[in-house]
């Protein structure tokens, strides 16, 4: 991180905003609002990458996390009927996992922040800013690392992506079969919820559900 006043200002803004947005994300009730707050968090984390000199990661963060993962969340939320979700408070199980993790991160931050110059030097990695700018940018530096030292993990990534595809399809097919069996009944429920005057319709739909179990 360059040591000048603009960078420091940017850092403190990003830190404050990302913490605030994270708190908002875990505290709002509506899952869609929560997802939108997550996008704000992702944006500010991308800002950290940018001031640390890794433009590639910053942009990848926005493209993948904001542009694909949260979109997937929103898609899933759009396909659910949010009014019928059970309300859940933060459970103790999550707290037991969360508090030690937060403490661990805090200790880590203190060790690095208050550490000796040797400690700080040791975490700089193989690509200090000088090397990166010599190579032409963070994407080029990543390319050098990826195709010299990490070729096998690179191929491993494609195997994992393949596994993810297969998993998604298997899950979706299971849901789809479930949905097919469930669809007439669901329709009956919605029309029944619309009041007494459409009760006849509901009955019809329920009959259809019995007639065609598939």
């Amino acid at each position, binding site marked *: 991180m360059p040591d000048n006043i603009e960078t420091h200002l940017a850092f403190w803004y990003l830190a404050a905003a990302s913490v605030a947005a994270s708190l908002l994300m875990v505290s709002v009730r*509506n899952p*869609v*609002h929560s997802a*939108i707050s997550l*996008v704000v968090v992702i944006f500010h984390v991308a800002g950290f990458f940018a001031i640390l000199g890794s*433009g*590639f990661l*910053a*942009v*990848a963060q*926005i*493209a993948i996390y*904001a*542009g*694909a993962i949260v*979109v997937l969340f*929103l*898609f899933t*939320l*759009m396909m659910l009927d949010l009014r019928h979700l059970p309300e859940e408070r933060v459970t103790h199980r999550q707290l037991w996992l969360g508090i030690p993790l937060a403490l661990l991160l805090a200790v880590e931050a203190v060790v690095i922040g208050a550490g000796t110059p040797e400690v700080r030097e040791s975490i700089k990695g193989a690509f200090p800013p000088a090397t990166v700018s010599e190579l*032409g*940018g*963070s*994407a080029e530096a990543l390319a050098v690392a990826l195709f010299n030292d990490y070729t096998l993990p690179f191929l491993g990534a494609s195997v994992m992506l393949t596994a993810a595809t297969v998993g998604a399809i298997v899950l979706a097919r299971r849901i789809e079969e479930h949905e097919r069996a469930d669809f007439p009944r669901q329709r009956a429920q919605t029309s029944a919820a619309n009041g007494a005057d459409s009760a006849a319709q509901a009955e019809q739909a329920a009959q259809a559900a019995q007639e065609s179990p598939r």
Partner: protein
Amino acid sequence: MDFWDWFIVVTKVLAVFLLLPVAPLALVLFERWTLGRLQSRIGPNRVGWRGSLQTAADGLKLGIKEDTIPAMADKGIFWFAPVMMVTPALAAWAVVPFGPPVDVGRTFGLWVADLNVGVLFFLAMGSLGVYGVVMSGWASNSKYAHLGALRSSAQIISYELVLGLGVLAVIVYSGSLSLVDIVNAQAGLWFIVPQFIGFLLFLIAAVGETNRAPLDLPEAETELVAGFHVEYSGMRWAFFFMAEYANILLMSAIAATLFLGGWHGWTIPGLEAISGVGWFVLKTGLFVFAFFLFRAALPRFRYDQLMNFCWKILIPIGALNLLAAAALRMAWS
């Protein structure tokens, strides 16, 4: 950075920023004139000289129209969705190179920022455009808007992959993600020549990404009324309109930059900067005109055709084209 560096940066940002609300107005007018001509009718001809103030008047009218929020809508997200639509469409212009570097005592380029990940920034901003669609559709709590948003966002993300494959084929040749470097790499040969398939993929994907005819399923009037923004009115509706045209212009500018050599062309000695910008505008205009022609000439796809076309034809072609581009690059050097 001294004062003049800051001055140049701020001036460039302001120049691009002021251009943006005006450009869509001009574009809409241009489209309506073109469509009028193509359909043997007059087109706008009342407000101003030959109707040249028509879209400005439309914009003014929309600004003073009531914009309702449906009672069952999620008000906050409904209000915010148009903002999410417009902001990335305008911010992506930061990386577009409008012309060559100029030297007036101090050398600076005719672009807002030459990020070394410029192309990726453009793609990232494009992927943020989905949020406006999803948020407006979900917040409206209307069946047409809901279905329109689901369809539209599924379409946008699918065609985004094709767009990425088209861009990748260019990067195999340019060896840089910076749009300025990509333009410089085309000084000798425009990338449309070695990468004609990539160019076609990019062009089709650009039409799909901007939800334009013939891939304008989300707006299919006959079945979804207006898709995700059916509940919008007034200024908020105008923002969706503005974002669409800003995106058309952006896609055209990026296509000109990636495949037609950006600002390169014959130059008048001494006026390199002006002729460079002229070439860029001309090439961008060519693509904008292509967008209008597609709308006038081609019938709309069916939704299943649209998705099958993307996943079963374009994406396999794009992946093979990427390998072919790499093989060609190996043979070439």
